[in-house]
């Protein structure tokens, strides 16, 4: 059992939890993820690590309820437990193993979208702690949905919030912000983009044109997360890669996003049914066409 030491809602859509998981906290690095399972009957859900405290033995996760399982996560309060919490999984970000002096010469641009700000944060924080200032663009629909602002400002070199509706910061998509920064004369050696697949796809189309090498963090459907099932396979440069052991970070200019987005839809109907069942509870009588109701 893994105890939730703190649980709070960051906004209408996004939740933050600090979970006691000493083994994960001792070994995790930026770029890695965990797999969380709420109870005996729950799914194994991959979540990115937003922060970690090696001394306290804690991991901070940030998530947005989308399917039935993450909706159940959202109901957990401080003091509740997850049955299972496994990690750290996947490979650390490449820069973690780079020579620090070389790294200091690099101009790095982070682009986070929505809840993607959460996995961006530990990377920017790690760089800050190692004397590297990175520029950070965080995009969101509106001001209310922007998360981790204070935290990000504290560790970023320069921080550029963007909102689609123009209610705060730069008005428009993250891609227009990238263009603006480049037009201003900023030269980036690498861009790290994390967010919805559609955002990463468009960031990559742009940075390819701008000739900025780009790393993306992929979040496909997973089951075991340890390289056993192959559910998370992606096409990268025409080769099949497993996001859980080969990734989750890949060269964004080589990822086949269209294929990845189609694969993400695979269980949409099944997930829809599960959500329906959760909402209807005991009144669920087989309308989903899947379970045959109570018969």
């Amino acid at each position, binding site marked *: 059992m893994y105890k939730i030491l703190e649980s709070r809602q960051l906004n209408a859509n996004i939740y933050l939890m600090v979970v006691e998981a000493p083994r994960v906290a001792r070994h995790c690095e930026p770029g890695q993820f965990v797999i969380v399972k709420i109870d005996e009957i729950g799914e194994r859900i991959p979540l990115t690590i937003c922060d970690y405290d090696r001394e306290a033995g804690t991991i901070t996760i940030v998530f947005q309820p989308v399917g039935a399982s993450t909706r159940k996560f959202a109901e957990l309060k401080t003091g509740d437990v997850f049955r299972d919490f496994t990690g750290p999984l996947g490979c650390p970000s490449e820069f973690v193993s780079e020579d620090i002096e070389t790294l200091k010469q690099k101009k790095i641009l982070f682009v986070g979208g929505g809840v993607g700000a959460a996995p961006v944060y530990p990377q920017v924080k790690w760089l800050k702690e190692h004397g590297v200032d990175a520029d950070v663009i965080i995009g969101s629909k509106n001001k209310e949905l922007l998360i981790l602002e204070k935290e990000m400002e504290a560790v970023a070199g320069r921080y550029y919030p963007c909102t689609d509706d123009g209610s705060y910061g730069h008005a428009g998509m993250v891609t227009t912000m990238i263009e603006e920064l480049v037009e201003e004369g900023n030269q980036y050696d690498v861009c790290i983009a994390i967010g919805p697949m559609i955002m990463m796809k468009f960031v990559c189309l742009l940075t390819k044109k701008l000739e900025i090498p780009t790393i993306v963090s992929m979040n496909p459907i997973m089951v075991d997360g340890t390289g*056993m099932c192959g559910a998370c396979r992606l096409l990268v440069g025409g080769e099949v890669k497993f996001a859980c052991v080969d990734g989750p970070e890949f060269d964004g200019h080589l990822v086949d996003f269209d294929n990845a987005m189609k694969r993400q839809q695979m269980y949409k109907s099944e997930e829809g049914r599960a959500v329906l069942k959760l909402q209807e509870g005991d009144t669920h009588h087989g309308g989903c066409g899947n379970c045959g109701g109570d018969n």
Partner: protein
Amino acid sequence: MADVLKRVPVREQDAKVRAGNFEEVCYGYNKEEAMEEASRCLNCKNAKCVQGCPVAINIPGFISKVKDGDIEGAYKVIGGSSALPAICGRVCPQESQCECKCIRGIKGDPVSIGKLERFVADYALEHDIKPEKAEKANGHKVAVIGSGPSGLTCAGDLAKLGYEVTVFEALHELGGVLVYGIPEFRLPKEKVVKKEIEKVKELGVKFETNVVIGKSTTIDQLMEEENFEAVFIGSGAGLPMFMGIPGETANGVFSANEYLTRSNLMKAFDENYDTPIAAGKKVAVIGGGNVAMDAARTALRLGAEVHIVYRRSETELPARVEEVHHAKEEGVIFNLLTNPTEILVDENGWVKGMRVIRMELGEPDASGRRRPVAVPGSEFEMELDTVIMSLGTSPNPLIASTTDGLETNRRKCIVAEEENGRTSKAAVYAGGDAVTGAATVILAMGAGKAGAKGIHEYLSGR
């Protein structure tokens, strides 16, 4: 008087009924049936069956106890060699190990050794007969990586010798392939696997789930920071293989590992569990091994029409005869001498069919089996919505890539000595699929035994 040349038949769930449920296929013997079958054993002095057993169970010894009705005594005899008899009695390929060597088999049916083992083990689980524990602890700490058949066996053997053993499991459930791979209808999880693991716990073995060695910690850290004096790696096989044909990343294409993990480990077949499975209505399983049969029979139970597509002929099917027989009885269709060339995908990215080509058998290849050769111009299409690839696995790199000085071979399997599991790294032993590539439960158990012996020699000899 029954015909001594014929084995006592074992009761099974009717094929038509079981094709629609996940209950166990085989009911096993009751005590009368077991005693009658046991009386067929000739109690050979130089028993050939024992030589065929990878863990060298004293087979005539336990069978003669069964004949006398002393089932607890029979369990103690088996327990001397095997920690998991209820599992082995169900999933061992007895027909190619012990039973094929049985002298009874020369003129008639060999003795049903597997079914007798299963009866004895089930009896012990039902009557809660305790395994024999070590008299006292010897103070040495050993870590076992993986709670599958090799890890459980190694842990059990070491605990009996007085070692303080901790098993680290990457997943949230114990049992490895016994829980994620082999389906409920062949190996019940609550009734058999969990209870048999309880017996290993009763020996004093500790278990920690959700620890991925190579990620959550490393072998070197286990030894340096947590004071383990020796480590056994039983991490199993790993990454599923695909064919490399067009369309393989389409929706509706699964590895057998994923399909089975969803149904077995995550219990997607049970509506009360949250994990979904896209079960499919018309399913092709590519491959002819035991895993392919498990995937096919699972898909069948989830309501699909199921085809096994295999490029060689029936005689080359690597699956156990019993599994092929059960699959056919239940209605799985076998498309033999057939090989996929392309998966056909609709405009939404879902499987709509598969192009296949007929094969014929040519000259024997390196494996000694006749090599399948494509028949030119014989391509045709199958209409499908799901394709399950069951082509074997390649080793998971997590441990080898994070352990200094651990030698792997050309196929990326860990190199270990067969008789004692010793690897190229001091104090580190290995066995099971991580060493051999995908094989059987009992071979993994044999390797777990060898590893325990190697570790014991190493730690007691210094």
